[in-house]
């Protein structure tokens, strides 16, 4: 099975926009793409979810191209409190249905 991959780490400064991409070239055709945020010693927390094109909520935007083989989480004007690990989650088709697969995770560090 192809892995769901993300950049290992990204650095940014407060007030900048950050874009984190997840590559999922084996995604199930009928499955959504979900992104989570995880702080140290805590469980992941849901950020945003989408199926195609663009989705926006109060904390982030999610961009999904037509072929759905990747997705980009966009965090506008990050702050120090956005320092965390970000994971994408997709369903990957198997012989017995879709298998939920988390991406490899991206450590975002935001500095002053």
């Amino acid at each position, binding site marked *: 099975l192809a892995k769901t991959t993300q950049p290992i780490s990204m650095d940014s400064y407060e007030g900048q926009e950050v874009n984190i991409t997840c590559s999922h070239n084996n995604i199930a055709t009928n499955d959504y793409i*979900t992104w989570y945020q995880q702080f140290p010693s805590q469980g992941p927390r849901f950020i945003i*979810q989408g199926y195609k094109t663009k989705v926006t909520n109060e904390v982030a935007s999610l961009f999904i191209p037509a072929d759905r083989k990747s997705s980009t989480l966009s965090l506008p004007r990050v702050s120090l409190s956005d320092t965390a690990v970000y994971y994408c989650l997709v369903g990957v088709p198997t012989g017995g249905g879709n298998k939920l697969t*988390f991406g*490899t995770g991206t450590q975002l560090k935001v500095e002053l």
Partner: protein
Amino acid sequence: NAGVTQTPKFRVLKTGQSMTLLCAQDMNHEYMYWYRQDPGMGLRLIHYSVGEGTTAKGEVPDGYNVSRLKKQNFLLGLESAAPSQTSVYFCASSLLAVNIHEQFFGPGTRLTVL
């Protein structure tokens, strides 16, 4: 509304010992999951349940068993612990999860097997 809770928070076992991790949710969710997370790695699905009385294997099920006797509880058992099972275990639940994956996670259980 406590959300998803996990018991215990920490545990140290010796090789060969057994234990059960308890996950409870008060959101009336149908789907429940057990994941493990190892240092520097993402989350890997161990087992999951799509409803009371059902269980299914995830990506790394070997060495673990699960039970879902009540809708609100999902138990993860280690019959004979091994050092390779040292990890942080997360439980999660979701209302509907056929294709939509908004999962709510517990705080985790840190397990060390000596």
